[in-house]
């Protein structure tokens, strides 16, 4: 990676061969972005990692040399009664979100890719949901879901579907579902637009050939669309996982992790520990744990793209 030679000069002899990894230009191109990432993202990551092994208080947060405490912060966090519930909430929140966002995103992308008047416009309009900052979305949805005076409950009661208001956000049985719904609403356009682009890029001749061969819609979907779309699908799934894992504002704005911690997830807990309890070290431990989780997801992703077909 370090060899930053000048761009390869094409010679007639070389253009005949397939491009090889020894081509020095490609590593150079990768290097630019990668150096940026290592410098500007590596430092904050290392900073957080260091804090997770130190004793950090408001009094010494400005210093870098802080007492080293080994795994003490990790042990304290695992021993916290909130540890397993938060981990469980996080898994439920992330898995439901990713599955729904990718499936709904794919469904909407395929629907709007059909040839009908206004399709492209509508697809563009749906992206408007993704423009709003998540705290605004949280505020609007919290209002819509309010038990008394909330529009959704008024509609349900007006239609005679329920006699008493549903406590969407304040009932421990429904709070997680409600914040998940809101986050799916927020995240789906993102998956949809990326998958739309992926679908639009698929070679059309393959589909036409399949249609001539008499393949049905479902067969075409499972045999052609999904395999061809796989690189995009994997990338989108991976991104959705990471973005849901770090999603903070929607839950923060709607429930603050309540009621009774039923919607508390890793980033919310990390924020509470760091900035409400001034327990910076344990907040950093959670960041490290999120890292470990994403390493797992990313390794799966990289494993699967290894076997990916190359044009």
């Amino acid at each position: 990676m370090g060899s930053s030679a000048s761009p390869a000069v094409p010679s007639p002899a070389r253009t005949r061969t397939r491009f090889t990894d020894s081509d020095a230009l490609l590593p150079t191109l990768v290097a630019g972005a990668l150096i940026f990432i290592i410098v500007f993202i590596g430092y904050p990551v290392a900073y957080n990692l260091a804090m997770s092994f130190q004793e950090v208080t408001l009094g010494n947060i400005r210093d870098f040399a802080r007492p080293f405490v080994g795994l003490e912060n990790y042990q304290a966090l695992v021993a916290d009664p909130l540890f397993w519930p938060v981990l469980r909430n996080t898994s439920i929140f992330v898995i439901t979100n990713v599955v729904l966002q990718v499936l709904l995103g794919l469904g909407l992308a395929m629907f709007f890719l059909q040839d009908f008047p206004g399709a492209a416009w509508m697809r563009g309009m749906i992206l408007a949901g993704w423009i709003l900052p998540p705290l605004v979305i949280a505020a609007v949805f919290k209002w819509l879901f309010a038990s008394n005076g909330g529009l959704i409950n008024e509609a349900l009661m007006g239609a005679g579907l329920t006699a008493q208001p549903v406590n969407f956000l304040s009932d421990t049985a429904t709070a997680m579902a409600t914040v998940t719904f809101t986050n799916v609403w927020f995240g789906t356009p993102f998956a949809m637009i990326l998958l739309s682009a992926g679908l639009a890029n698929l070679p059309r001749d393959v589909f036409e050939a399949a249609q001539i061969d008499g393949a049905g819609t479902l067969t075409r979907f499972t045999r052609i669309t999904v395999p061809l779309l796989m690189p995009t699908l994997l990338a989108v799934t991976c991104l959705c996982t990471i973005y849901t894992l770090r999603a903070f504002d929607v839950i923060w704005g709607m429930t603050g992790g309540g009621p009774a911690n039923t919607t508390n997830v890793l980033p919310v807990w990390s924020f509470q520990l760091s900035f409400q309890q001034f327990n910076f070290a344990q907040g950093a431990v959670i960041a490290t744990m999120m890292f470990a989780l994403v390493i797992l997801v990313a390794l799966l992703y990289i494993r699967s793209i290894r076997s990916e077909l190359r044009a």
Partner: protein
Amino acid sequence: MRARVAGRWALTAVGAAITALYLFPIYWMYASSLKSPAELFRSPPTLFPSAIDLAAYTWIFTRENVLRYLANSFLLAGTTTFVTLALAIPCAYAMSRLRSRWVDGALLGVMLAQVLPPALMVTPIFIMFRQLGLTNSYEGVILALVTKSLPFAIVVLRPAFLLVPQELEEAARVDGCTRLGALFRVILPAARTAIVVCAILVFLMTYGEYVYAASLLSRIAMQPATVGLYAFIGAEISDWNNIMAFASAFVTPVIILFILMQRLIVQGMTAGAIK
């Protein structure tokens, strides 16, 4: 033939229903911003404002200087999108063409770079930027914003470059193009759908970003609209009229831009399919 036309319009109807249902919360935001304070909290709530009250808009435009906030937002988001793509396109392209353990490692790194929420990233970034004299400057915020968008752009663009047939590129090189020449003349046009979509998403992501701008820019005159908006949302007192008006003013220019750019986006989205 007539049945097919009818079928297409039926699809339009279904699409419109989905879109309307989906966009309802945004409609609600606009409707609330136009209600009078008294009507805002009427129970049961009114679906349409019974009278248009522009007091909240008057306040945010005169006292809050929304236009300056929005101009700052566009400046930050536009520049960040440009810088991000300039860094991400070559990197993603090269990663799609290279095959080695190094690339896998780099990809893992790119994935990991996105894990920490900005709330945890910003303190160390602030410390670093202070050493470099980058706090309270647009350059600093743009760099910080690129840390968020660059890994995203690489992950999105890499599969798109993978889909561009290598034969196209080889043909160009047989015709005497350098690799960089082939990248610009063949690869980029072939992958423009993905590039346009990526640019839009990076722009929107940056436009809606709050944490970096709020922490790195303490001067109000430099701050983007999210900072002004969050000042209302995060206030001790929930001032709904102003929140809704500010949020509407925040989204509207982007929606207008979207409508104006629709043709370009649609071209991008369908061009790949026609090729």
